[in-house]
């Protein structure tokens, strides 16, 4: 552990068993108090290491992006840290607590937006949010407030099954933040959205960060992670191959994030 700006900064070390090709595993630094700490996280699906020795520490108000080719392990990593899958090895700490030992306390502090929004199509937008407000013990007013903050208050009486993709994503985000989480996991939040809708959602995500929320998101969109994220973590075949600020990644690995992506994923192969 190093001291940076008076706060503890965590260095993620390469495991001693790493091969030469693995030596590109990054050192993920953050300069605020950790909200999420992940150590040696691994999961094995029938012999396939879907996530292999993943390490990261994320500080308050940080936006960290997970990026990588299809099947790289982005969604699995998010599912592991959200407590939807149990790791084969490693540990996760949210605000210093173990999500398996303190599941309810942790879930109260985190918001999750899974890929596709996953709303109840047979319920109205407001009913979807009221249901989750009750589950988080949030006041019912929080549901309407969240819809207003996400700019979809006018849709509250519409059936979720009748919403457009962009509207669904906004409602899903409203549902994920209605209880005021400290940590937010977003799985491909702008997947399938047109550029204008994606830009709107980016604005909302930045606003949430401004309100003190720490965000870990997965994406396929280089431009999105470049404009949105403080750090970008490249995953390939379940391994973290780089985790830096977008500027540093471009400096080190290529003129653009796309070049860095190609270089890093080729090296890892």
């Amino acid at each position, binding site marked *: 552990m190093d001291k940076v700006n008076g706060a503890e900064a965590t260095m993620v070390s390469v495991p001693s068993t790493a091969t030469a090709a693995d030596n590109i595993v990054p050192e993920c630094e953050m300069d605020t108090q950790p909200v999420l700490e992940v150590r040696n996280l691994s999961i094995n699906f029938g012999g396939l290491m879907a996530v292999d020795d993943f390490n990261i520490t994320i500080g308050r108000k940080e936006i960290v992006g997970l990026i990588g080719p299809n099947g790289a392990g982005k969604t699995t990593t998010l*599912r592991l840290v*959200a*407590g*939807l*899958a*149990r790791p084969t090895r490693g540990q996760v700490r949210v605000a210093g607590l173990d999500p398996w030992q303190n*599941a*309810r306390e942790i*879930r*109260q502090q*985190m918001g*999750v937006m*899974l890929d*596709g929004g*996953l*709303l*109840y*199509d*047979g*319920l*109205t937008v407001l*009913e979807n949010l*009221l*249901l*989750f*407000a*009750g*589950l*988080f*013990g949030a006041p019912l007013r929080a549901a309407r407030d969240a819809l207003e903050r996400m700019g979809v208050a006018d849709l509250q009486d519409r*059936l979720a099954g009748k919403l457009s993709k962009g509207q669904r994503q906004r409602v899903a985000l409203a*549902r994920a933040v209605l209880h005021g989480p400290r940590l937010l996991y977003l799985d491909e939040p702008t997947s399938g959205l047109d550029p204008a809708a994606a830009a709107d959602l980016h604005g909302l995500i930045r606003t949430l960060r401004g309100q003190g929320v720490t965000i870990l998101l997965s994406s396929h969109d280089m431009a999105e992670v470049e404009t949105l994220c403080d750090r970008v973590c490249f995953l390939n075949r379940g391994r973290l191959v780089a985790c830096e600020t977008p500027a540093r990644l471009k400096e080190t690995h290529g003129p653009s994030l796309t070049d860095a992506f190609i270089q890093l994923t080729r090296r890892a192969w």
Partner: protein
Amino acid sequence: MRFISLVRGEFWALKRNRRVVTFMLLMLGMAAVYALDAQDGANFLPVVLTVSIYTGVWQMTVTSLVEEKERGTLEALLVTPARPLEIIGAKAAVGVLLAALMSALIVLLFRQPPQSPVVLLAGVGLAIGFATASGALVGIVARDMKTSSFYRTPILALLVSATIIPWQDSGWAVGEVMRWTPTRPVQELLWGGWTGAPVPLAQNCAVMLFYIALLLAVGARILRQQATSR
């Protein structure tokens, strides 16, 4: 609070579910046909009750859980502070209330008071509980609606036939097996409650409550394991 929210959500979904309304009307129509024959029809009340409860509650619980899995909404629930048992319980609660309402209407349609109302009530309650718990377990184990359709209907047919046919009196080998199944106490309670035949009420209730608790506990455990192993 969480449980109430989940139950409320189930009711919101139910009020727009035309399948359930259609099913209830069908069952009440069937009951009315038998009830019209005041002489022999009354003997069919336990059968009508069994068919309504099992097909209604059991199917509703299975379908509700499998559809949640298919849509992925179950995962959205599992990242909230709600416990798996609360999620199952909320799904069950709606089926229980509907079945109770339907059973009351069916008994009213037959226009004859049961000989032992308490025993009949116990039979209906335990049948609903068992249908819910076994439906929840099947719904949790089922991967999706399509693949589960191969075994859902046979299981349901087995449950209904085992409850409405007095196999244990047949004297066959199958009768010996059926004597130990959870369908027998329900059958005895429903028939005993309607006809006034003597029934070991406390023993049958204890056996059924044990089965229901066991099924719910196993279901909640599997759900928790599924949630963390995919």
